[in-house]
Each structure stands twice: as C-alpha cells, then as structure tokens.
C-alpha cells in the first residue's frame, strides 16, 4: 500500500521548502553586499606595498644587482603578476567614459594615490577628491569605519602624497603644513572662489592626520610638519607619540622597538627619511638611528595584530596596512642609480616581511605595485651608449636600400666626448654635464670587478629627471590575488582592496 501524505504534512513540507529557499536567497543578497557568505576575493587583512616611482626596469635592475640574472626579487616570486595603467586627468575633467573626460598621460604621486585610495581619476596634486573637487572616501577611512585596524608607513614625510592619499583630502598636495597658506592650499581653478579655511580640502594635511584618527599606526618622516597642538591632539586620541613634535625631537629605531599599544605615531626625521645607502656608509651618524623600511613594516604588522589583553578582540576584524618605499622615486628624480638600487632592496625586503606574514596567516592579501615610473630608468648593453651621450641619434640612412631612407636622414652616430666623460659613478663622477651610464657589478661578474667600472655587468641610464607615463608592474599573493593578473587601471585597486576587506560593495 502506498503511503499517503497527510494535508498537514504537506503544508509543513511547503513551509519548510519555502523557508529554505528564502533563507538561501537572503544569503545570496548578503553575499552580494559583501557582508557574509561568498568569500571569494575576500581577505582578513590587506598589506599594500607601494614602490614610489618603481617601473619595470627598477625591478629588473634590482634583481640583476642583488640576485643575478637568474635570481628573483621577493616581489617577483608572488604568484599573481600584471601591469597597472596610471594616467591622471586634467582639472575639472570627468571620469573615464564621460563626455568631459580629459586624460593626462603622466600622473604624479597625488593623483595616483587618489586613484587607488578613492577609486577615482583626479588631477595631479589632488588628494582624496575627484577632478572637480568633490571629496571621496578612502579605503583606509572605510576600513577604519568598519572597525579594522589601519596603518600607514612611508620613508617620505608622512604628509607626502602617497601616505596622505589615504588620510587626507586636499585641493593641493602642497598644503602639508605646519601652517596654512593661500598659495599652497587653495585652488581657485577648481573652486572658483577661495574656500573657507575651515573646509577640510584646504586644511593642512598634518592637521588632518593628527586629528582624524584614520591610521592607528603612523610611521615615517616629516616631523617638521607637526607642532605642539598636533602632539596634544594625537595624545588626546590615545596615540603613543614617539619623539616629540613639540620639541621637534625625532623618534629613533630604539623608540620604535619599544613601542606598544594599538595607536602609535612615530616620525624619525624632520624631513624625508635618510636613504639606506647613506646610513650604511655612515653607520655612526644620527641618521643611522632611523629604522629601515623593513623594520617599520615588521613593527607595524606587530602593532596591528597585537592584543592589549586576552579578551581583546579588536584584532580579529583584520587590518589594512599601506607601506611606501618613497625614496625609490626621490632618488630616481636625482638620477642616482646607486641610491635608487639601495631603496629598491629595502623595499623588496619589506615585501618579504609582508609575504612571510601572509604565508603564516593564511588570510592576508599582499599587493605590491607602484604609482608611476620615474625618470625613464633603463638597462643598456655593456659597452654601448645612449642618445644623450651621442653626437646624433642612430643612423637613418642606407643608400643601398631606398626603403630604409626616410626623414630625418642621419648618416651616423657616435659618442660625444663632451657629453660622455666616463662612467658616472666612476671616472666621470666629477663632471656635472656627463650623461654616461652608472655601472654596477652583478653576482656573476669576476672577482675584482667594482661598481663604476667599465667591466661591471649592469649598465644603467636615465631618460630624464621626471615621471614617465609607462604602466607599472603589480604583484600579489593571497586571497583574491588572481584579480591582479593581466593589466588593470590604478582605480581598480580601490575596488579590489575594498572588496577584499568587505568595506565596499
């Protein structure tokens, strides 16, 4: 006999099935909002490392220099790899796709920082606003609001464009402080008339950083941007202030090593931090007491994951940490390859610290990229020379083949003795008008080959002293890192990081 299903049982079944379907559907909605459920691309922590001015050649040159042609920097070992387009826009431009979109092929650090911090294109010099001056929230602000811990580390002044891009909103990056000035802070081409000085967009960046609490851990340079009122404001929010803005006493690596707590503010130089090569060459100098970028990175991670006591659950929500190797750019502006390479090494050592943490943690997304390329860094073949050293560009005449003759017509090129007076970090170092390359020994060079010699295997040149518009590399590790494979625009980094941390949809 076939078993019958009672009416009551049927109703119960219907109710249960409907309830199950609704619950499942609701879960789908929550997932779409990033609140729970689908964890694809999600991570508990994000460490975002930024090599300011680091182009593809910076990476290759550092690899050749420190690990040899068959070696790899740590960043190159990360599984996801791609490129990032970096262009900016003109003032008052619309966003890409709009009719009033006016791109600028070469970005500065402020526009680039705004792109990944706030997800919008803006004009060079703008921070945390779009190209029309509208304030845009940053990933770090959103992370802080969501209860995550936050950290911002840089070898530049902490008010400089890259760190400031996460912690401030300014019409002009020059409005760094310690004081307000019309010329540095206002931009009438954006606002028409001067904004009241109470407007956040013309408030000195140092004043913003000291009072908005966006970053729990703030490590870098730029103490001279801050004053006694800033120190009081920081302490009132519970920061442990290393050194003293009031007395302009810089913090030291010993201060950093001893620091504890969840909110730490430490600036180790009145300006930018000292380049690594200088500290290594002068180990007894005052500047040698500054921490390295790897030391600041390691300490920042420790502080952001620390618990004040066994019941402290604030660390369980995760953290967002930005780390900038700023001096790669600043020494590229100077066309100083030796210092540039030293800064690349320190930056890559910081990447290793982040990667090691992520590997142990298992739920941390590490992203390594740059804001723009700086100075057209290049590797030329040993024994060759650049156009800047030449009497004329390469030959463009071949009388036996008319197809190769075009305009302009150039019969030959040769090294110009007045423009190339010896390896720039060797025999030609005293000539300020010398365009010759800098040379460095690489691990495969024979013993006795030294930097600055023609025998050294790595020949490095610069195109200019300014930024270029080349795409920059990106490397990533951890949950969601596959989104960094291929080529993306720098504004996409905002969404990738924000969604990984569940702070944006």
């Amino acid at each position, binding site marked *: 006999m076939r078993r019958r299903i009672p009416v009551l049982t049927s109703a119960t079944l219907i109710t249960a099935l*409907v309830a199950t379907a609704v619950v499942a559907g609701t879960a789908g909605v929550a997932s779409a909002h990033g609140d729970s459920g689908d964890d694809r691309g999600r991570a508990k922590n994000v460490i975002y490392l930024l090599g300011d001015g680091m182009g593809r050649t910076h990476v290759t040159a550092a690899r050749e220099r420190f690990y040899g042609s068959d070696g790899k920097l740590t960043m190159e070992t990360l599984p996801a790899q791609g490129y990032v387009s970096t262009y900016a826009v003109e003032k008052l431009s619309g966003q890409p796709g709009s009719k009033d979109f006016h791109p600028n092929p070469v970005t500065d650090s402020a526009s680039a920082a705004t792109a990944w911090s706030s997800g919008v294109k803006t004009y060079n010099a703008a921070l945390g606003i779009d190209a029309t001056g509208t*304030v845009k929230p940053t990933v770090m602000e959103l992370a802080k609001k969501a209860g995550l811990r936050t950290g911002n580390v840089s070898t530049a002044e902490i008010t400089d464009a890259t760190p400031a891009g996460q912690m401030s909103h300014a019409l*002009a990056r*020059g409005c760094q402080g310690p004081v307000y000035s019309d010329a540095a802070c206002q931009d009438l081409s954006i606002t028409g008339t001067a904004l009241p000085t109470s407007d956040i967009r013309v408030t000195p960046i140092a*004043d913003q950083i000291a009072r908005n609490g966006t970053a729990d851990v703030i490590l870098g340079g730029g103490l001279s941007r801050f004053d006694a009122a800033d120190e009081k404001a920081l302490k009132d929010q519970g920061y442990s202030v290393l050194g003293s803005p009031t007395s302009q006493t810089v913090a030291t690596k010993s201060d950093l090593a001893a620091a504890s707590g969840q909110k730490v503010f430490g600036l180790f130089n009145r300006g930018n931090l000292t380049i690594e090569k200088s500290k290594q060459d002068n180990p007894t100098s005052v500047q040698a007491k500054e921490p390295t970028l790897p030391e600041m990175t390691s300490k920042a991670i420790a502080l952001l994951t620390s618990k004040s006591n066994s019941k402290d659950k604030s660390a369980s929500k995760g953290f967002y940490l930005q780390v900038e190797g700023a001096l790669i750019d600043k020494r590229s502006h100077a066309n100083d390859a030796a210092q540039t390479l030293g800064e690349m090494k320190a930056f890559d050592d910081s990447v290793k610290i982040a990667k090691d943490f992520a590997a142990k943690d298992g739920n941390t997304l590490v992203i390594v990229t740059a804001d723009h390329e700086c100075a057209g860094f290049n590797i030329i073949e040993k024994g060759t020379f650049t156009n800047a050293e030449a009497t004329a560009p390469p030959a463009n005449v071949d009388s036996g083949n008319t197809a190769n003759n075009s305009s302009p017509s150039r019969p030959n090129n040769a090294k110009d003795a007045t423009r190339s007076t010896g390896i720039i970090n060797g025999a030609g170092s005293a000539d300020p008008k010398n365009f010759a390359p800098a040379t460095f020994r690489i691990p495969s060079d024979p013993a006795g080959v030294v930097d600055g010699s023609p025998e050294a295997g790595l020949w490095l040149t610069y195109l200019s002293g300014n930024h270029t518009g080349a795409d920059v590399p990106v490397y990533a590790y951890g949950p969601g890192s596959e989104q960094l494979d291929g080529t993306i625009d720098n504004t996409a980094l905002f969404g990738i990081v924000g969604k990984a941390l569940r702070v944006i949809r």
Partner: protein
Amino acid sequence: MKRTRPIVAIALAAAAVLVAGSIAVGVAVMARTDAAAPPPTDAVTTTLPGLAAASGAPELASIRLLRPKPGEVGQAAGPFDERFTVDDLAFDGKAVSGALRVTSDVSAVLDLEIIAGFYDAGGSVIGSARFVYHATDDGPVDPVTGTPVESIPFRVAVPTELAGRAVSTSIGVPVLVNE
C-alpha cells in the same frame, strides 16, 4: 482519500520553492547591479574638533626675536631651515633678494613662501612683506633671463610705507614643499 492529494501537495511545494527562489535570485541580481554604488561618504572626517581655522597669511615669530644691525640681513628660524641654502642674499635698502636652493631634495619645489621682516635703526620690527612661489608647469625661471633654474630667485621689496625707515631685514621660510 483520493490519491491525487499528495501529488498536488508536492506540486504546490515545488512551485512555492521556484517562486521563492526566483524572488531571492531577483533580489540578489538587483543587489549585484548595485555593485557600483558609491562608498559611504560618512567615513570621511570633515570637521576636526579643537582645530581653529587658519586666518591670515603664515607668520614666523622668530622674526621678532632678531635685531639685525643696519645693512644686515638676518635669517629667521623656521621649520625647514635644514632643507635649503640661500645664495646671493643682499639688501640694498629697497629690497632683499637672493636665490633659495633646496638641498634636501632634487624634485620640483611645489610651494615656497619667504617672509621678509624689516627693522628700523633701533632694531625694532616695523613691518614685513613676502615672496610667494607656487609651482606651475614651467617650473622656476630666472626673473631676468626667463630660463629655467633649479634654485628659486626671490626679491621682496620694502613696502612703500616703510621706505626710508627700513635699514635692515631678515628672511625666514614658513612654507616649503617639494614634489
């Protein structure tokens, strides 16, 4: 009891599941189309408690601490003194001039402000004036030749109302930003 009742119940259940599932999926799809929604702006701190809004141009209290002798040009302490040198500093009674060269960085100077304090024969401050530089695409240029230069030439004239009374001066830098 007719045998058809269980079949009807099961059919009703299946239909209900389909309807509920469709609604849920529809809502979910709507939510996904909302993925580009702008992030909340209330995460931005736009007011800073305890911070007084700036008023007026930046000043340097250190200018009042100096008492340069007639004809002298003093250098008033400011927050960025270790970042620059001043070449060709001179005062001719009508203006103080020179060229500021940043030594801490080689990237472009974005903003520079130089305050010149003027003093009477007794060494008391009688007024001030300023030189303001804000970067343009062209960068700093020599005011005479118009050619680009790495240092920034400056000239601060004695204000008209101080003419004849200003016998010495001092300069200081409250604003300096490099790219």
